[in-house]
């Protein structure tokens, strides 16, 4: 076999994406593109009320409509013991409501018909009589003793309180506050928003009546975990369930939970013996599937006279909606919120979170976020800004004084995190240099004197991503490891199978590059397969920026396993001892005689044709990677805004982002992830809001009311990097996809508040819309 001329394209290269070849031709295969012979269509009837008893459901007219095959209610599901399902937070959620509805949009009945049009027609013919109950929309109200009880289905649930959770040392923190020269406090609400991937959720369930095999094409970010949960919920043998997560049109956490529609469609296919497709429309997606945030936060920071942070406290009321369906590791009902000390060396910290049921859609999912890191990062970066304003210190100087220094890593935080690596000062310095910070501060002063408003916002975030370690982090008991299986074929081409699942992140390209970097097989010769539980090793899936930290590590480790075997085969081929073989970029050569070499392709062929005596044939392996720690990406984001006094409208003039995600696999893809995340951060800061009226009607149930950033509003970004490798990750990489969504909202809000600080305005909750800005200025008599 001759040496290949194809470039290897390992780490640090930006080959164009393999997956694009089908997407640009319209040949992607998303769930709604799955069209099976004899397929039925399902539509779901949803509650118009947020809180009501169901008096009766009359399905007779719907049932009689031509083309309707079945009308399914909660009673039908109960007959099969499927009226309730477990959530990812060990709560129970109604699959189809039985006696009561607890949020607007809740699933009440389903119609299965020969066409989607007929199924929707039939929904209109179902007659449900409701007896309205008092809706509980505000979580503070929900926690009052006389609040109506939302979860009457749970015998032990006597109030709307779900959990109390705390982390840190309360006494030490109280002592720090007692000794502080200054205490800064901030009440802020991180509002409910929705990930809104462009593709909604859906499935095609096909249960073969002869074999009992259930094949379910599903919009799933975690197909293996979902298969296990399906097996547990439905009592189906796990080997008889195959979940295929095909091309996914964006996830952002929205496709982590299991939704009632999946369960009903699968049950319908099982009972009817035909494939059933259910794809929700956008309104259903917005009003019933996993929302994010909804954290009412109070933060307090204790400072010394010279601007050192002495302590940090936080109290949160978390609105989880009507079912606790938050996608969180089991031990952490408030996710990783206790990363709230951020990038700072804080000696004492304590946080507590209380979860509440309300009559709103369930969720609390990690929207482009590692389990509540976003809320935590927003709180600390807003507090730092407020502390700077109140102490008269430059916010940049306050950060410098309090950063964890680079020689402190690995750094153990006051609440127990061990930060793996960082150089926060370097990222901040680079951002300020690219921004032209000092010049902008001069300009700001001059403008203020002329009565014009401009602001500079800074956020120096630290994330915590890549769960597990499995002993600490599990989802519904399943440890958060991940896996890779690598098969190198006789001709030196390979197939890599993963437990994670891309929703646009480009795994087919980047994971091939990881293997290429370790084994020297060109990335273009490696096919990546994922999202099919029959054909990939078990993994916990893609969310919370865990693909590269966990799945990427598994890919590197399995490639190293095969390389170890390849060394033995090369020694055999070169008639030397294993100890004399060196490896470099796809070549195995004799130490001191680099011309005596075999390529990985030679070795692969030999693995099937010419093995050392007694060696197991083949060149294949699998690796399950349980990370020893999380990775801690960081960076500094800076935003410059100009505010129009007449309208309150703010515009981003400049946005500079410095990200450090350790070693970059494919810089082009990393930059694309950062662009996208910064845009979602901008959207959350400026416009994305799911809210409710006092009756619990969702305001934000379509893209006219729930605003997403378009090309017209979205600013351009200037992005830069520093590289501080993770010391414990096999290739030094950290996660990156969520950093910009985690870090940037505070930068935008800090910029607006920086402009308004001379007026004494210290808080405007997101989304920071022009009417809120104008009202705040008006209240201060400025306009």
């Amino acid at each position: 076999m001759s040496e290949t001329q194809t470039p290897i394209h390992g780490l640090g290269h930006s080959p164009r994406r393999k997956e694009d070849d089908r997407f640009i031709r319209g040949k992607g295969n998303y769930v709604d593109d799955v069209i099976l012979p004899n397929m039925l269509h399902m539509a779901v009837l949803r509650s118009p009320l947020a809180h009501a008893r169901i008096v009766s459901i009359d399905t007779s007219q719907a049932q009689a409509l031509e083309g309707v095959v079945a009308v399914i209610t909660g009673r039908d599901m109960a007959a099969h013991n499927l009226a309730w399902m477990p959530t990812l937070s060990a709560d129970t959620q109604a699959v189809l409501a039985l006696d009561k509805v607890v949020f607007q949009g809740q699933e009440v009945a389903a119609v299965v018909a020969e066409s989607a049009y007929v199924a929707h027609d039939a929904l209109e013919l179902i007659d449900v009589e409701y007896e309205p109950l008092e809706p509980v929309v505000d979580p503070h109200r929900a926690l009052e003793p006389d609040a109506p009880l939302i979860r009457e289905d749970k015998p032990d649930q006597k109030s709307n309180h779900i959990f109390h959770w705390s982390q840190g040392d309360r006494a030490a923190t109280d002592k720090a506050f007692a000794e502080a020269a200054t205490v800064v406090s901030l009440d802020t609400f991180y509002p409910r928003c929705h990930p809104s991937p462009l593709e909604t959720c859906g499935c095609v369930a096909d249960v073969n009546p002869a074999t009992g095999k259930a094949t379910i094409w599903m919009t799933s970010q975690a197909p293996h975990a979902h298969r296990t949960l399906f097996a547990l919920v439905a009592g189906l043998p796990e080997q008889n369930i195959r979940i295929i997560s095909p091309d996914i049109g964006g996830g952002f956490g929205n496709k982590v939970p299991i939704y009632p529609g999946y369960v009903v469609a699968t049950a319908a296919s099982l009972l009817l013996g035909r494939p059933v497709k259910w794809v929700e429309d956008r309104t259903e997606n917005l009003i019933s599937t996993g929302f994010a945030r909804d954290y009412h936060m109070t933060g307090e920071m204790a400072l010394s006279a010279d601007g050192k942070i002495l302590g940090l406290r936080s109290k949160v009321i978390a609105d989880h909606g009507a079912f606790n369906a938050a996608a969180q590791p089991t031990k952490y009902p408030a996710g990783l919120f206790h990363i709230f000390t951020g990038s700072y060396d804080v000696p004492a910290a304590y946080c507590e979170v209380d979860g509440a049921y309300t009559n709103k859609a369930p969720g609390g999912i990690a929207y482009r976020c590692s389990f509540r890191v976003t809320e935590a990062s927003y709180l600390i970066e807003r507090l730092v800004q407020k502390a700077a304003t109140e102490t008269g210190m430059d916010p940049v100087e306050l950060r410098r004084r309090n950063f964890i220094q680079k020689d402190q890593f690995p750094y153990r935080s006051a609440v127990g995190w061990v930060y793996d690596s960082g150089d926060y000062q370097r990222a901040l310095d680079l951002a300020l240099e690219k921004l032209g910070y000092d010049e902008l501060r001069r300009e700001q002063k001059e403008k203020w004197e002329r009565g014009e408003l401009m602001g500079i916002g800074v956020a120096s975030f630290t994330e915590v991503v890549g769960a597990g370690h499995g002993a600490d982090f599990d989802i519904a008991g399943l440890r958060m490891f991940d896996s890779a299986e690598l098969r190198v074929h006789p001709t030196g081409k390979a197939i890599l199978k993963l437990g994670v699942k891309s929703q646009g992140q480009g795994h087919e390209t980047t994971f091939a590059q990881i293997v290429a970097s370790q084994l020297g097989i060109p990335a273009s010769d490696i096919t990546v397969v994922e999202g099919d539980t029959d054909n990939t090793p078990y993994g916990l899936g893609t969310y919370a920026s865990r693909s590269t930290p966990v799945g990427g590590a598994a890919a590197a480790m399995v490639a190293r396993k095969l390389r170890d075997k390849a060394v033995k085969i090369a020694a055999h081929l070169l008639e030397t001892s294993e100890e004399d073989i060196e490896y470099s970029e796809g070549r195995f050569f004799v130490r001191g005689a680099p011309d005596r070499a075999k390529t990985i392709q030679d070795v692969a062929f030999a693995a099937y044709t010419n093995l050392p005596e007694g060696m197991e044939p083949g060149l294949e392996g699998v690796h399950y990677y349980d990370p020893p720690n999380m990775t801690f990406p960081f960076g500094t984001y800076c935003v410059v805004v100009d505010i129009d006094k007449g309208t309150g409208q703010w515009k981003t003039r400049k946005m500079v982002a410095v990200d450090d995600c350790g070693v970059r696999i494919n810089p082009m893809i990393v930059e694309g992830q950062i662009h996208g995340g910064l845009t979602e951060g901008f959207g959350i800061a400026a416009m994305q809001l799911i809210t409710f009226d006092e009756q619990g009607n969702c305001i934000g149930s379509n893209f006219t009311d729930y605003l997403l950033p378009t090309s017209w509003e979205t600013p351009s970004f200037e992005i830069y990097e520093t590289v501080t490798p993770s010391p414990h990750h096999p290739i030094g990489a950290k996660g990156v996809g969520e950093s910009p969504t985690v870090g940037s909202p505070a930068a935008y809000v800090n910029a607006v508040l920086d402009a308004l600080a001379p007026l004494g305005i210290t808080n405007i909750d997101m989304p920071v819309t022009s009417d809120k800005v104008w009202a705040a200025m008006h209240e201060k008599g400025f306009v």
Partner: protein
Amino acid sequence: MLISVEVNGTERKADVEPRLLLVHFLREELGLTGTHIGCDTSGCGACTVLVDGVPVKSCTYLAVQADGRRVETVEGLMNGGALHPIQEAFKQEHGLQCGFCTPGMMLTAKALLASNPDPSEEDVRWAISGNVCRCTGYMNIVRAVRSAAAQIGSQS
């Protein structure tokens, strides 16, 4: 209702319900699943196709309205075996991630370039502002459209 629509250069006749949406006609009746449905209310642009060269959101346009007209979908972008310069540029400039908005985005771009062969960044941002992308942040899409414009310009 009997309709006759020229889809990607081929005349397609069908007997359709008057209420059938064009996007369902394309996806379900003709199997052209490259046109996606994102919001059902013309808010996102995933379903954009060209009708007589004009971008139309096919989730709020009836199939019968396309009777006697020329419809172009993503499946019609290639010329023989060759990618259209817009397709090539989206790949080269990393103008897509999950790929769900991409067909609609490319067709809107095609209509733009037909009327404005050398668009500024602002021109592109305005033209595609009815097409939502949740992944890319638009910067690379704008680059891709302008790069395609340059490519087409250098060919002609």
